[in-house]
């Protein structure tokens, strides 16, 4: 239930936050991709299927939220894969490890999105792979995931022992929200 509420919040609020607030701040280098950061932060607490669906929905939202003017499905594809990878790479481990995984996924997703933008929509390569925007996104993703991992409430999720009666389920119920 909590996972559903948080997912809906990411899908509805992150694209609005992106275009109405973050892009308007004119940060040096371009500013972070809030939708990607939201997916990377929430997906580790979901099962892989749910993570992929969250990424797909958030990406599609970012594809159709005005003033987007690119091919629909571009961000949905990238974020779907990002959400799936984040949910699959096991979320237990230290805050540092989680942050490293988040940073790697953020980097990969931003670069893949940039390549798709250049190929599908003819965005100039310099704009599609702007190093400033990549740095902002990777930094913010690592920071948010590390902060979530360090929250005491979150840590209790990771300490639930794997139950014996469901040995074939690699994603124990205890540390997942869904």
């Amino acid at each position: 239930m909590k996972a559903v509420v948080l997912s809906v919040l990411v899908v509805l609020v992150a694209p609005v936050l992106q275009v109405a607030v973050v892009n308007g701040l004119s940060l040096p280098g371009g500013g972070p991709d809030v939708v990607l950061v939201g997916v990377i932060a929430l997906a580790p607490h979901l099962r892989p299927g749910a993570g992929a669906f969250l990424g797909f929905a958030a990406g599609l939202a970012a594809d159709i939220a005005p003033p987007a003017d690119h091919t629909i499905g571009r961000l949905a594809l990238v974020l779907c894969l990002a959400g799936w990878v984040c949910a699959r790479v096991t979320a237990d481990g230290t805050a540092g490890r989680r942050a490293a995984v988040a940073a790697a996924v953020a980097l990969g997703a931003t670069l893949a999105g940039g390549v798709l933008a250049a190929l599908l929509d003819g965005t100039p390569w310099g704009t599609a792979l702007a190093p400033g925007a990549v740095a902002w996104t990777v930094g913010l993703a690592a920071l948010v995931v590390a902060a979530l991992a360090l929250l005491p409430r979150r840590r209790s999720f990771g300490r639930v022992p794997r139950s014996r009666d469901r040995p074939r389920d690699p994603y124990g119920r205890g540390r997942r929200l869904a």
Partner: protein
Amino acid sequence: MRAAGRRAPALLALVSAALIVADTVTPLAPLRAFGSAVYGGLEDAASAGVRWASGERRLEELERENARLRADLLAARGTTPSPAQADGYRVVPAHVIGFGRDGTVTVDTGADAGVARDMTVFDGNGLVGRVLRSGPGTATVQLATASGASIGARLEGSREVGLVTGVPERGLLRLSLLNPSAEVKPGDRVVTLGSRDMRPYVPDVPIGTVVTVEPAPDALTRTALVRPFARFTALDLVTVVLGPQPDGAAVDASAGKGTTKAGDGDKGADRDEGGSKKAKGA
């Protein structure tokens, strides 16, 4: 459970790829309309909340008057005959409520206020761009600096005709003059040429000033870099031109002009039409 965990992502990735293909073949207009209805409203609410909190609500009356005065000024600027000359413009003020990454912004005025595609948008400094599509309460505006934009333009002094295209990575514009021997020097002002029926661009909106004249790679055109007057990273209050003044005489005059002018074969207007079509296709 494991199988489902793998099948779902693969399926969603396939759906995404299918969407990309579908949107490339035929633009998915209903999906975009849905997006602008849902997210346009949310962006509008977020932006209105911020403005209300900062006490700008009282300024609305003044903003409307400002937009009207700007339109009057714009109409008064036309000193030489243009393809589409009107006695005045019907305009509507709008706020920029969202900044995109595709050289586009969202404004908080949409089809409800009469905004439709290919309408000119400008602010107190100069040309902003044209309306790309309009939702119920919001519209998407393509900035003049977008990589797909191309605008018919002329030098204000010499009236030489050219085409302005975006150079997005530098925030500048490139002016290509049709006359290869045209005189152009840094500091020259560039204004819009104006399209037939005033869409997508009304004539004589200031675009920017020439900063550098590029060395000619060939003798076919003369190009120069133009610094736009509008500050595209800090847009706020803009004005959308809905069309000429609804007053009967003005409409008749412009309609009549349109038919007689068609015989003149205004090359600049033709070129601009072609340019905007290219932009639409991109």
